[in-house]
């Protein structure tokens, strides 16, 4: 099955949320006119990231992290036989240049840097190829996407998209889901919003209680929604059903007991099966 489209219609945040919730394994390419990125996922976790101008090789990642000097990187590049990232990592650890923790942290920071840069891409094609894995020589580090999604949402600058996602702040409330909050990095503002979540409080009321403007509250709620920490509900006490029944509805309600309705639906089922 395909998973492709344009970031204009389905944002980076939504894409990462989908990959995470569906626990997908595969490669995602993203392409704009000037840039491209390649992300690999394993069971919903990001394991490798690169762009057209940042290839995601270990030596470059360690250089960016300040663990290797430029001179050392050049020396590595000058070697007649190019080592794979895994072999280079082992060599560097054995020779005491870096530790295993340095490598893991540098790879993680590099991936985060790449993936955060993608949140500013508002247009561009994406395509997910299920089952595709990075080449064996690459070092992969699994990264939980919940925090990435939250942080990415904090970086959204376009109000328009947020309004599309959360149009009526005064008509909906929030409910905290079962997802454990201890595993995610929430900001003080996030906590302030969470502390006001109640079925009777609309999002607009939560914003008012925290002196937040619409853009701020939308950004926070959108991030928590995408990370699956909260869900939208109708506020308590709001009339959810129509106040008035139409004539046809009144007629039907008067005439039909549950037994009669069941019998009618069973007749419909039997007939449709024979169509």
């Amino acid at each position: 099955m395909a998973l492709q489209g344009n970031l204009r219609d389905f944002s980076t945040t939504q894409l990462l949320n989908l990959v995470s919730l569906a626990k997908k394994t595969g490669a995602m390419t993203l392409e704009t006119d000037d840039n491209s990125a390649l992300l690999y996922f394993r069971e919903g976790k990001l394991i490798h990231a690169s762009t057209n101008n940042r290839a995601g090789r270990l030596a470059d990642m360690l250089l960016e992290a300040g663990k290797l000097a430029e001179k050392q990187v050049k020396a590595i590049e000058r070697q007649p036989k190019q080592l794979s990232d895994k072999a280079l990592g082992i060599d560097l650890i054995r020779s005491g240049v870096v530790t295993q923790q340095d490598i893991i942290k540098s790879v993680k920071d590099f991936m985060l840097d790449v993936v955060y840069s993608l949140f500013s891409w508002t247009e561009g094609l994406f395509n997910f190829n299920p089952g595709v894995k990075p080449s064996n020589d690459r070092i992969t580090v699994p990264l939980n996407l919940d925090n990435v999604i939250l942080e990415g949402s904090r970086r959204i600058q376009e109000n328009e998209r947020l309004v599309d996602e959360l149009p009526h702040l005064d008509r909906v409330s929030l409910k905290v889901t079962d997802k454990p909050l201890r595993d995610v990095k929430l900001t003080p503002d996030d906590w302030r919003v969470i502390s006001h979540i109640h079925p009777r409080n609309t999002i607009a009321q939560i914003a008012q209680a925290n002196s937040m403007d619409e853009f701020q509250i939308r950004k926070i709620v959108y991030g928590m929604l995408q990370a699956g920490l909260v869900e939208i509900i109708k506020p308590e006490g709001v009339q959810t059903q129509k106040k008035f029944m139409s004539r046809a509805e009144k007629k039907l309600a008067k005439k039909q007991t549950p037994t009669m309705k069941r019998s009618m639906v069973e007749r419909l089922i039997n007939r449709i099966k024979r169509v």
Partner: protein
Amino acid sequence: MQTVKMVVTGPYSAGKTQFIRTISEIDVVSTERKISSEAERLKDATTVAMDFGRITIDDDLILYLFGTPGQRRFDFMWEILTEGMLGFIVLIDSVRPETFREARNILEVFRGYAQTPYVVSANKQDMPDAWSPEDLRIALKIDKNIKVLPCVATDKESVKQTILELLYSILEGIEE
């Protein structure tokens, strides 16, 4: 003679008219008009008021299928069409992610009109670019208790299955 109705809704060009046409025993009474806007020229004609199909169940019972117009400027018809419905089907064009947000909005509007059972039908599953029903469930934030069904609106068996699944959901609702 008793009549019951189901409503087929969804974004513009999701395949609502075709869905009803595939299963209806009569030629679908359609209110299609030629499309004037270049931007909306995905097809030659669009529904402006409603589509109307029929399935005779037995001597005493008839099922009517109503298709809503997909374009927002005709949405004044939506609430009228939902009056007294048994349930509704939200048809999604699985190959056009640009319509997913609209599908979600339509779903919310219809849930507001009536607390009747509904199913989501992921149409055009025969096309190579189609998103899977599982991905659509996440993309559209559809509750795990709501059925998201694969569908090909030109295929009678597929349309039948969608209607049957809605009827099973209605039956479960009565039993609860």
